[in-house]
Structure formats: structure tokens, C-alpha cells
């Protein structure tokens, strides 16, 4: 089975700063990492391959040239191949354009029967790219997978988290899943993997390689536009409640009752 994992490189902290003059994020000096959720997707792909005793895992990322570092991390963990989609024409893509581009690359890789994505990326937090890739491929998708129960040649049984419990579903392949962290504990790369990652040649595909519709990639292909970016103001200074534990409890409960919440 050929499995593709979509991984995104994100800033290693969510404590971002804004350049007030330009209203853009200051990215310099902030190290990048693999989107934490995508590590679970990589791990699960590797486990499926191990379970089946054969297969190929391909990691895929769209981003600037340095996103190759994220792919190297995936290689160090054990993925067989990695592909970077990088082209100035891809820049400024929203989820729709990103998903279209990634779907085109999955078609080009060929014979992929399963795509795994993280639940969401921690920079944008949209959780939209996975389902949108599936739609572009015309495949079924299921979000928030916490367990893969059975893998057959044409069907896979999974468990997904819902708002009030879990569901077990049978899904025909090819399919796309987004995974939550409950699914596994990602492995740490070993020395051998790290050496492999260092030496690996990562192919870079451009818009021309993918034969994409130029109207559907990058900024041009993005229906949504960011109009404004600002910092939320939360300058609430807490009202401190002092005294013995009994006094603190009493004073707090009185306030909460006053607000109608206790």
C-alpha cells in the first residue's frame, strides 16, 4: 500500500509578534518545526506499513525551500520518500488553493491509496486542508481518527472522535483521514534515520511539474483574503481573593452566585 502523509512546517511557538508598521507577523528568529499534529500522521503511516509488512510512505509538504527541513525530519522517522512542493506561484495560498496543489501532487505520485493529515496546523488552526484535499481527489474522508482497527485491501475500519463519543466506520479505499494525538506516540528518530535524512535528496516540484491550473494556485487561486491582523487585548487583572481556604471558598462562591453561575 502506498501512503502519503501531508506535513506542514510551522513556527515552533505560537507566541508570535507583530510588526506594527506593516501589520505582518515577525518570523525572523523563530525556529520552525513539523506541525505537532502531523507527527502523529507520520507515525501512523509507518505503523500501517509495519503492520502490513510492506508498502511505501511518502511525505509531502508545500512551502518555501526551508520546508525541506520538515521533510528531513519525516525521513529521519522512517518515511521512504519525500517531496517538496515549492514555487513562488504557490505563495499566498489559502486552504482551498493549498488543498488543490497537494491533491495534484498526490495524483502525480500515483497509486496512493491512503492519505493521512494532521488534525489541524497550529499556525492557522483551520483543519480544512485535509477534507479539501479529499474533495479534490474525489475520495471519501473522515476527520479526527483516533484508531485504525483493520486494514483490508479495499476497506479500512477506523474510529473517530465526535463531540459526544466515538464512531467506528468502514471506509472504502482510497481515502483520506485526519488524525488526533490520541492515535499513537510518535517515535523519535534514531541515528540511522538521521543520517539518511541528512543525505537524502528531496525532489522539488514546481507548478510546471504538477500541471496545475494557474488560476487555482497561490494567491490567485485563494478566495479568502486576510484584511486585518491584530492582537487580542486581554488585560484583565485578576481580582485576588484572599483569606483562609474556607474564607476564599465563601467569597468566591458569593461572587459566582452574584453572576448567576453558581
Amino acid at each position, binding site marked *: 500500500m502506498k501512503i502519503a502523509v501531508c506535513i506542514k512546517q510551522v513556527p515552533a511557538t505560537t507566541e508570535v509578534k507583530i510588526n506594527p508598521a506593516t501589520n505582518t507577523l515577525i518570523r525572523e528568529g523563530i525556529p520552525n518545526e513539523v506541525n505537532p499534529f502531523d507527527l502523529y500522521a507520520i507515525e501512523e503511516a509507518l505503523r500501517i506499513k509495519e503492520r502490513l509488512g510492506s508498502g511505501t510512505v511518502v511525505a509531502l509538504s508545500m512551502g518555501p525551500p526551508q520546508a525541506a527541513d520538515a521533510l528531513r525530519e519525516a525521513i529521519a522517522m522512517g518515511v521512504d520518500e519525500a517531496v517538496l512542493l515549492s514555487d513562488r506561484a504557490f505563495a499566498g495560498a489559502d486552504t482551498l488553493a493549498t488543498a488543490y496543489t497537494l491533491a495534484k501532487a498526490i495524483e502525480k505520485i500515483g497509486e496512493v491509496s491512503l492519505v493521512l493529515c494532521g488534525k489541524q496546523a497550529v499556525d492557522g488552526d483551520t483543519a480544512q486542508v485535509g477534507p479539501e484535499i479529499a474533495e479534490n481527489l474525489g475520495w471519501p474522508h473522515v476527520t479526527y481518527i483516533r484508531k485504525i482497527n483493520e486494514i483490508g485491501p479495499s476497506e479500512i475500519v477506523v474510529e473517530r472522535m465526535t463531540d459526544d463519543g466515538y464512531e467506528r*466506520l468502514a471506509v472504502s479505499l482510497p481515502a483520506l483521514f485526519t488524525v488526533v494525538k490520541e492515535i499513537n506516540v510518535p517515535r523519535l528518530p534514531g541515528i540511522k534515520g538521521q543520517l539518511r535524512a541528512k543525505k537524502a535528496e528531496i525532489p522539488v516540484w514546481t507548478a510546471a511539474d504538477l500541471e496545475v491550473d494557474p488560476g487555482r494556485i497561490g494567491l490567485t487561486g485563494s478566495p479568502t483574503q486576510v484584511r486585518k491582523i491584530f492582537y487580542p487585548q486581554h488585560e484583565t487583572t485578576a481580582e485576588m481573593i484572599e483569606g483562609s481556604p474556607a474564607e476564599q471558598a465563601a467569597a468566591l462562591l458569593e461572587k459566582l452566585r452574584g453572576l448567576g453561575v453558581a
Partner: protein
Amino acid sequence: MSITVLTEKCVGCKLCVPACPFGAISVRDRKAVIGEACNLCGACVPVCKFGAIELVRETGPAMDKNAYRGVWVFAEQRRGTLAGVALELLGKGRELAEKLGQPLAAVLLGHEVESLAEELFAHGADLVYLAEAPFLREFLEGPYAAVLTEMIRAERPNIILLGATAIGRSLAPRVAARLGTGLTADCTGLEVDPATGDLHQTRPAFGGNVMATILCPNHRPQMATVRPRVFAVPPRDPGRRGELRRVEMAGQALDLRAKILEFLPAEGEKVNLTEANVIVAAGRGLGDPKNLRMVEELAELLGGAVGASRAVVDAGWISYPHQVGQTGKTVRPKLYIACGIHGAVQHLAGMQSSDIIVAINKNPEAPIFKVATYGLVGDVLEILPEMIRQLKVVRV
């Protein structure tokens, strides 16, 4: 949007026939023919080795924005109960619809759910589109996306709002991608500009450290998912009536590529954190898993749910659905009581927009106090039993 078989390229190889999830393709006179059941999903396009199937999607600029009218709210229901966020969205939707001078509709999909329409009218819907069928009884991306997309194509609403729930966040991107339109996730603010009809959608990014306002100026419909508990449920007007429109689905083919085998309700009933009014959350400061009992008891007394920090979940004290924060759930209850939680940014990302935050921590420097409404410096193992005792005294 249209799909065409380029007959000069088609060799009648039939590869596309099994690839169609809707069974819409047949081969006649050695040429593929796409039938009525086609859902324009595009699954056939890549399997054709001859490039003989062409799918043309609508693209932006040529779009006549004025042809799109009305505000739609997806009336999410689970097992016959409306999600709270559906009513909240009717309140906000009403406001947007009035500013635009356009009607507000609720879209209800399910099986034997007609009785819910009354609630939707009572909370402000002018119109309820009702799609009832056995295959819509439970939420599945395939059939729900197919039905909803068809309705949107037929009726052309201007704005579509869905709850940012597990269902909404899976369905909305599927539909948006099929329509080739924009979608803004997890909004916390919505305003409309009556002059342009553009929806100004505000949402947190980077774990809530940045807010962004997003527009979809050249495409319609404009789609957004909205966090539960951001907008208030509008007052219920039991006498309010509206128009019920049944949606015809006779010609629709079924996407049966995913099926539900079993539903497993969450163990420890109260885990629907996203809709809880009160959350009492456990942190590592509780010291020992047996002390979770206090948190559960307090939650019970306040009619709330139990949340947890990642440290507590990772230690195996409580299951993952309870986790609040960047890698867990984002919550916005009226009252959030953080018990022995330090307040790491990743935790704050999931709860800082709660209405009232109470922090109980023995370290006065803990960052949780920075977002708290009320701060109690002290031992959580002494304060919680006092709160429980006093609450019980009042009840007696």
C-alpha cells in the same frame, strides 16, 4: 461547473465506470456517458488514462455576486437533538440577514427531524429547508456534502454559517471545496458590509495569540464555521412561524463509501466540553489521580463538565476528550475553574476566551492568573473541599 467527456479522446476502456462512487457512468457505443446521478465530485477525472474527462469549475471574477441572496444556518442535529450552536447562529444570522435585507434560512438534514423546525422558527428562521431521508439519519461526510451542495447550487445563498463542531469542521471544507469557494474556520466575530455584501470574518490564529479578519470578496457563497458559545442564543418566540420547504432528493445518488458500524458514547458522560456552561479543569497541581474526585464533585454540583490540562491527560489520569488547549479542545464556557493548572500558552489557547475564569494555584506567579477574573492563591486540595462543603450546605 460542468463535466464533459471529450469523445474524440475517449476509447471506451471503462476504467472510469468503477471509479465513480455514484455509479453514474456507463459506456455506450464505446464512449463514456455521464448520467444524471453525477455529483461532479471529479473522481473519474484522474483515473482516465486518456485525459478524456474534463471538469470545469466555476472560478471567481466572473461571478455575479448579486445572484446570491440569503443567509443560511446549518441546523446541526445529533440523534434528533439540535446542537446549541445552531440556535446561536440563528441569532447572529438574523442580525446579518436584516443588515442585508435578505431572508434567514435554517438547513436541517436528518431523518424524522421535522419537529425540530419549530425550534428553528422560534429562534428566528424565516425559512427551514428540510432534507429528510434514512441515509441522513447519522452524519456522514459523503451524503451530507452531496445534499447540502445540491441545495446551495439550486438556491444560491450569499452566506452559509456552520458550527465549528466536529461535524461542521468536517462538512464545511468538503462543501466549500466542491463549490470552489472560500471558507473561514472557527470564527469568533462576524460583521457584514451592506454595501458590498461582504462578510468580515474574525478568527483567532496562532493559538489565539493573533486575530485575523478575513474576507471572501470575489466568491459566493461566503462560508464560515463559528465557534460554539461565542454568540448568544436569541430569545425564543414560540408563536413565530415560517415557511417549511421540503428538499427533493429523488435524483440524488448515494455516496456509500463510508459507513458507520457503531457509535460508542463517551465514557464518563460529561465530556461535551464545547457546549458546557461550566468547566472545572484539573491540572497537575492536584498531585494525585485520586484527587480528581474533588474536581468531578465540584463539576457535578455546578452542573458542569470536567476538563484537564495536557499534563494530566498524558499522565493517564483522565482520557483525551477532556483535554483543553491547543492540542485538545477549545472551550468557551461561562465559568472555567482552573484547579492546579499552571497556564502554559498551549493551555490558555483553549480556554482564555471563557467568560469568567477562576484560577486556583499555590504559585502567585503562575501565568494562569494573567487571564483570570478571580485568583485564589492557595492549596487546591484545601480550597476545593471547602467549596464542595459550602455548596452542599446551601443545597440542604
